[in-house]
Structures are given as C-alpha cells and as structure tokens.
C-alpha cells in the first residue's frame, strides 16, 4: 500500500494533468468554431465551381481532345496516395483513422499489382506510414508553420502534385482526409482527384451556356484550379475534424482525470484514517499496559 505522501503527490499530478486537458479542450472548441466557419465560407465557391465543372466536363469528356487531367493517362498502373493529416497529436483516433484507410487502399493496390506512391501533408501521417511504407514515399509538405489554412497553401500542394503529373510520375491520385460530420463523428474519406471525377449531381448542366473563349480552353484552365479547390476543401474539412476529434478526446481525458482524482482521494482518506486509528490503538494499549 502506497504511503500518504505518495498518494498526495499522485493526486496533485493528476490534478495538473486535468488542468492541461481542460485547457486544451477549450482551446480546441474555440479553434473548431473558427475552422467550421472557414469550411462554411469556402463551400459556396466550391459548389459553384463544381456546378460549372460538371457541365463542362460532361460535355467535353467524350471527345478525344479532352485534357489528360480529365480523361486520365489511359493507365492506372502508378497510383499516388495523398494523405492529409495533422501536425500535432493528442487528437484521439483522428490521424490513425486516416492512415488506416490509406493503408488499406495501399494494400489493395499492391495486391492488384499496382505501383503505389505516397505523398503526405502533415507530420503525423508521415510518421505513422513511414514504418511500413518508407520506400514508397515520394514527397512531404510541412504545414506546421501554417496558422490559418489559406487557399495559397492548397495551391502549393496542388502545384507540387500537378508537376509530378506532368512528369508522368503517376496516373491516378487519391486524396485521403477526414470529413467533418460533428464533434464526435469524423469520416475518413478517399477521394480521387486525378483523373478529375465529375461530382455527383452535377453531371449534366441544365442550361446551355456560351463559352468564351471555348469549352476546351476553359476546361484546360479550370482543371488545375479544380484540383486546388478539392485540396483546399479537404484541408479545411480536415482542420475542423482535427479540432473536433481533439475536443472530444480531451473531454474524455478530463473526465477520466476527474474520476481518478475521486478514487485517489478516497484511498488517501482511508489510509489517513487507518494511520490515525493505529496510532490511537498504540496509545491506548500503551496506557493499558502501565
């Protein structure tokens, strides 16, 4: 049985841990609100963009002159997995869930005889995948300096990936990130971005548009932007998911610490009482012996 001083120290240390997790939870809650707002505000651009892309892509995709970003290279041998994760830990299963999904895809693709390449954004995903797939890593982008995700950050990622595509380093690119549902649910998602997939529901334009200059030129200009936009919304969703996951993880940790403190306090009081009782017995029996 631990002595009183040990118990007291233990309680004090759990109490300070609880303070930290409580503070982290509150910070995450504030950041979550901001991340959600950012995701909300970017949605209108993405939706309009998708609508226009949908109309354009479905009218051009049949023709031979369709750009490679839309029609693909004609092969699916080389697969690029782009894994978006966070820079910091202590956010529950957030990063693990994303890498688990990516890992499953990688295994399926390898089993089907494809060449898999992995590109990571965010330190945690790189650390987790490095153990098993270090020879497949082709690139990494660090976001630890980024305070607030901006469109130009997404463009940096997109530019890197498009350069690799122009270089014929891969045929198909899939984005892995976590979609934000609510504070307790984040859904790990795989989304193919190259060749560009027409988003559901936008397959056919209901109005016939005039195009200036012409459909092909617009499409060639818009496709790289569509990739940036997809990456940008994935990054924002991921940001909100990360804060949501951290908030619920820290909430749990705070509660656990509280329960532990209660338990330890009871144990501390019991042993204090036991010490008093045994002291009393010693005094009484000493007095009786006289």
């Amino acid at each position, binding site marked *: 049985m631990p002595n009183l001083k040990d118990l007291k120290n233990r309680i004090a240390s759990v109490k300070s841990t609880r303070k930290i997790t409580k503070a982290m939870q509150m910070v995450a809650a504030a950041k979550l609100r901001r991340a959600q707002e*950012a995701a909300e*505000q*970017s949605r*209108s*651009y*993405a939706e*309009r*963009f998708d*609508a*226009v892309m949908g109309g*354009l892509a479905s009218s051009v995709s049949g023709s031979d002159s369709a750009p490679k970003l839309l029609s693909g290279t004609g092969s699916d041998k080389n697969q690029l997995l782009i894994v978006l994760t966070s820079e910091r830990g202590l956010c529950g299963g957030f990063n693990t869930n994303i890498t688990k999904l990516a890992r499953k895809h990688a295994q399926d693709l390898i089993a089907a005889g494809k060449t898999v390449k992995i590109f990571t954004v965010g330190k945690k995903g790189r650390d987790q995948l490095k153990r098993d797939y270090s020879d497949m890593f082709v690139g990494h982008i660090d976001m630890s300096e980024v305070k607030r995700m*901006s*469109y130009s950050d*997404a463009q940096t990622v997109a530019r890197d990936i498009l350069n690799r595509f122009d270089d014929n380093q891969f045929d198909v690119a899939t984005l892995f990130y976590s979609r934000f549902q609510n504070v307790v649910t984040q859904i790990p998602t795989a989304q193919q971005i190259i060749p560009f997939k027409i988003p559901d529901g936008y397959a056919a334009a209901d*109005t*016939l*548009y*005039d*195009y*200036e*200059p012409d459909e092909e*030129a*617009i499409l060639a*200009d*818009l496709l790289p*932007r569509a990739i*940036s*936009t997809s990456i*940008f919304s994935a990054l924002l969703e991921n940001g909100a998911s990360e804060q949501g996951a951290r908030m619920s993880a820290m909430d749990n940790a705070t509660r656990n610490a509280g329960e532990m403190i209660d338990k330890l306090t009871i144990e501390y009081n019991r042993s204090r009482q036991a010490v008093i009782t045994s002291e009393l017995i010693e005094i009484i029996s000493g007095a009786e012996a006289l």
Partner: protein
Amino acid sequence: MQFELVSPERNLASLDAASVKVPGADGDMTVMMGHAPTITMLRPGLLRVEVNDAVQEFVVTGGFAEIGATGISVLAERAVLKDDMTQDQMDEMFDEAQDFYQRAKDIKSDGAEIIDEAEKFLADLSTMSSELGLKIK
C-alpha cells in the same frame, strides 16, 4: 440582377446590381438583366459593378464568371476592392507573373502556348496598373 463575387476563402460581395462590366478573356462585356447564359474566363482587369447610382470596382487577376439570366457569379482566386489596391500588392502580383513567365521560358522552347499566355498576362497586368494609376516595376 444578382451579383456575387466569391473567392475560395469566402464570399466577397453579394449585391443587387443594375449592370456589371466584366473583363472577359476575349474582351470586356457589360452584363445586364436577361443576358444570354455565358461562361467566360477573366483576364486581369477591373470588374465594375453598378448598384443603383453607386459604382463599386474590384481588381481581379483571373478566374471565371458564370452569367445566367437572373444573375452573375464571379469566381476569382484573388479580388481586391479598387480603393484598397496598393502599390505593394501590384508589385507582388507582377513579381509572381514575371516569375511564372521566366519559369515557362526556362522549361519550354520559344513559341510555346504557355509562354504566349504568360506574356499576355503580363501585358494585361500592366494595362490594368496604368488604369489604376499605379506603377509597374
């Protein structure tokens, strides 16, 4: 007519406009109520929105506009109110364009389409800056 100006990060403006002058890729056009549905690319230039008697002007450097019968949405990656435009921002845009032009020239041989485009972009930028009364480096 509903006018919307949207950037990837947020909505910049949503106005009930009488007419909107768009710097289209093939030339300026003024859009009013009942315009034929059109999708046009933008070149660097001024986006002029007339709301009743007031006029708002935005500087855009690219993107596209979707024109429907009842409204126009402009999707621009970068848009700044004309009065907020500073020499520094102009310099930054010009540097970026210059940088792109140089890189295109390094990779591709002369006469490639991308070099022509970069040249045109630079020319459009300098026209725009003189219109704004700003200097080009």
